[in-house]
């Protein structure tokens, strides 16, 4: 999996809102529902999605799964997967996207898990490491690895943008 690192300034709220509105327009056109599973972003993606009036036509809601227990209880992420791979892993990101899509009865699930900082880095998991995942009718779940180099707020905004970009990519593909 390629690591995508961005060196430009972190995205602004206006950029997030604009991208969320683009995702929303496609969801509306396709008649699909979106659900979000947010760990490190804490609700920022939902906030951006619901900045658009009329978001209730395509956004069902989501889970803010800040704790591991919430990932298990609210999203059916297997405890075993959290133990073996850790919460910040591609496998958990995909399980979160699949879980939220299933739990919320949505066509599209988007998930983020990461280490926003300033603490939490480990020898194999650097500060700013994030996985974003999207599960849509257009194919198997997509996941991307990012390592952002901003401060906590910047990393969170960048992770939200990364998730929305991946969602845009997946919903732009015609369903199978």
């Amino acid at each position, binding site marked *: 999996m390629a690591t995508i690192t961005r060196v430009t300034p972190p995205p602004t709220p206006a950029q997030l809102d604009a991208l969320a509105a683009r995702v929303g327009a496609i969801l509306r056109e396709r008649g699909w529902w979106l659900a979000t599973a947010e760990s*490190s972003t804490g609700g920022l993606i939902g906030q951006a999605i619901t900045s658009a009036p009329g978001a209730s036509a395509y956004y069902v809601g989501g889970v803010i799964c800040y704790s591991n227990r919430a990932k298990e209880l609210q999203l059916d992420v297997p405890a075993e997967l959290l133990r073996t791979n850790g919460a910040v892993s591609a496998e958990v990101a995909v399980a979160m996207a699949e879980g939220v899509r299933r739990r919320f009865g949505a066509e599209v699930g988007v998930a983020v898990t990461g280490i926003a900082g300033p603490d939490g880095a480990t020898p194999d998991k650097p500060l700013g490491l994030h996985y974003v995942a999207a599960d849509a009718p257009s194919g198997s779940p997509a996941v991307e690895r990012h390592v952002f180099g901003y401060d906590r707020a910047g990393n969170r905004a960048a992770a939200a943008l990364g998730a929305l970009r991946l969602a845009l990519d997946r919903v732009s593909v015609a369903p199978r």
Partner: protein
Amino acid sequence: MSRPPTEGELVAAARRLGDRLGRVGWQLAVAESCTGGLVGHLLTESPSASDHFLGGVVCYSPAVKCSLLGVPEELIDRVGTVAPEVAEALVDGTLARFPAAELAVAVTGLAGPDGAEGKPVGLTYVAVARRGEGARIERRIFEHARDGNKRAAALLALEIAGAVAGE
């Protein structure tokens, strides 16, 4: 307040709530409808959020309020989604879904630009409950644009939760 709260005011309120939760040793969970995740976002601006914030449910659609947070469908049919009874049912449902939570906060409202359910734009209910105790419910009608109404609703949720945690 004649203007919507600023980012600084929101972050400060979230920090105050976080401090109080830390002091009393309570864990918090949230249910957000009209705020769409803003309360969770603000609470997790602080690096120490994981000490006291478990997470929550963004219950944007009526169906999610029922299926995931146990709000009776019959209640929504009768009073709509923006109602004190629904806010109360949302905090009860949040405490049920997050067994480790000592405190839950729920917010439901009409951010706009359109009203619904025969109710005005800006109408917002916040409910806060400590486990085993009755909910405190607050009603407001905010008169900002959509974004401002969401911010004002989030601030109210943070303040009421902070008040309950500080009692």
